[in-house]
């Protein structure tokens, strides 16, 4: 059986753990620990290894949802996780100091993977301090040479997360149809 994955990436506190929790059939496996370094400012706990959840499909197949560690020092994990990946959901926290820089960093880091699959971007926390406008994200993405959906999302909302994953699927195959 194929071991398909959807990967969730993004900086600390962007909502990856919550997003996987929202989409997963079962409570996700989290490896959060109390943050003891620079990430404490943004989040009391942070993912040190990975988050893992599953979506069970018709026919008992499973899609694995992996959240990469938010801290950049764990980027060695990323290569391992991208194997058999269908696409990347990049979550960006709009309240960070420079969310456009975060976007550029993650898109460049996953460039090869995205080129083989697809990316869809969710902007979180837009209701708090909208530091960057949606247009800025689109401009930056274009400037970096990527194509993909960018939506405002609340990682706790199934509807929002469903939209962003659907956008990823349709980016891979616009002619895709539901089997229902």
């Amino acid at each position, binding site marked *: 059986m194929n071991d398909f994955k959807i990967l969730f990436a993004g900086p600390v506190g962007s909502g990856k753990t919550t997003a996987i929790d929202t989409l997963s059939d079962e409570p996700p496996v989290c490896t959060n620990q109390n943050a003891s370094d620079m990430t404490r400012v943004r989040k009391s706990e942070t993912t040190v290894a990975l988050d893992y959840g599953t979506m069970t499909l018709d026919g008992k197949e499973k899609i694995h949802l992996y959240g990469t560690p938010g801290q950049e020092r764990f980027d060695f994990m990323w290569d391992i996780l991208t194997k058999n990946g269908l696409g990347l959901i990049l979550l960006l926290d709009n309240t960070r100091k420079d969310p456009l820089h975060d976007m550029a960093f993650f898109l460049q880091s996953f460039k090869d993977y995205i080129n083989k699959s697809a990316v869809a971007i969710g902007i979180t926390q837009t209701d708090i301090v909208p530091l960057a406008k949606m247009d800025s994200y689109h401009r930056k993405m274009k400037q970096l040479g990527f194509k993909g959906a960018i939506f405002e999302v609340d990682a706790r909302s199934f509807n929002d997360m469903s*939209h962003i994953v659907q*956008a990823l*699927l349709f980016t891979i195959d616009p002619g895709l149809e539901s089997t229902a």
Partner: protein
Amino acid sequence: MTTKSINISFLGIDERSKSAYEIFFKGIKHFKCHPVDDYGKAQLCLVDMDAYNIQQDYAELILNYPDLYVLILSLNEFSCTREQEFFIRKPVKRDQLEQLLNEIYQSIFGKTVAKRQLISPPPAELKTDIKDSVQSTKTPAEKAKPVPNSDEKVVSIKEPRKVSTANAAKLLKVENEEHFVGEQSDIDLKNPAELEKIYYDPGHLLQSIVDKAIMKSREEKQIIQLDVLNNTFYFDYEEQKVYSTVGPGIIRPLCLVHHDKNISYTTRANTYRDKLHEIIQSNKNKSIKKTLEKQSWNMESFMWLITLWCSRGRIPQGTDFNHPIYLMQWPNLTRLASIPNALRIAALLRDRRCSLSSVARHLNIEQRYVFAFFSACKAIGLANVSKRKADKLFVSEKPEKNKNQSILSKILTRLVSFSDKSSMNEIA
């Protein structure tokens, strides 16, 4: 066969006039009219369009009871916009009213009973009078359509009335998709006779009025107050916000009619911003229903919404549906009113240049979804018809199937089935 009766309710009509109408109804011989208080039980409502503040009540009425027949009484000219809407100019003449009630009765029950039973037909001059003063929204083409047989009509009234308890949240769900994408079935785009069905002119609709208010707010860097038929909107370009004194329950009907007059734009200083919240809140408190209808929007969401309600699955006049269109970027679909298949359409248009006709064909979806999506994207400045001459020669090919299509389809099915069960988002 027993004669059926029409249940009649009243709006904007005082008790005295109501009593007069009740006496009048008793005098009708060919069918019975029963006055009722509950609009949900009524088949017809008499509306006095000259009553104070009636516009708002009337808009709520037709929104909550879309199937209700309405007879408008007014001293002024009234332009009917719904099929079940009839107009009679005051002073109301007895014969005229009886003739019209007969027409409505026939329309409801699909019978011609009264026509046969009319003891003395109205005089010729009265006939002309009635013709002039009574309007319905039926176009000549619709009038030429064969009248459904009586069985069909009877079946339709036996079905429980769809009484909507519409509020803001419900209006913004995709479950009322006909509000957003209309009900027009696919047409043969090669048949010129059918083309008028897919076009609309935003020029006299709320869409262009709102667009103008947004432009003014941007140019003047001030808040613009827009008044349309006693309903007020505030456009704050700097904050990208729109406020209104009424909710979607009133705004949507405003999108269905042409506005040539009773519109005013007033410039307000930005200091007025603080007052806005007070105005909106105080207006909410005044509302009898005290509903939680949405009264503030992100500007883009508002423009998108208004365009959908105005276009209802059509494209602006003059749009070349055979010419490739471009989509500059994905619309922020999680915060915009839902259009079925919007994600698929956006993905295809971001992947390749396609004409509107080929999008519907490639994705095997109804044209109205593509047209609604295009009109809304165009209104917020994200899409347009390509003007490059080279694109005329462009032939769009159907997207190739992905090698993982089977698993992707299963993921999609899983997401869609869960979305159906979960509550839908309101527009931000």
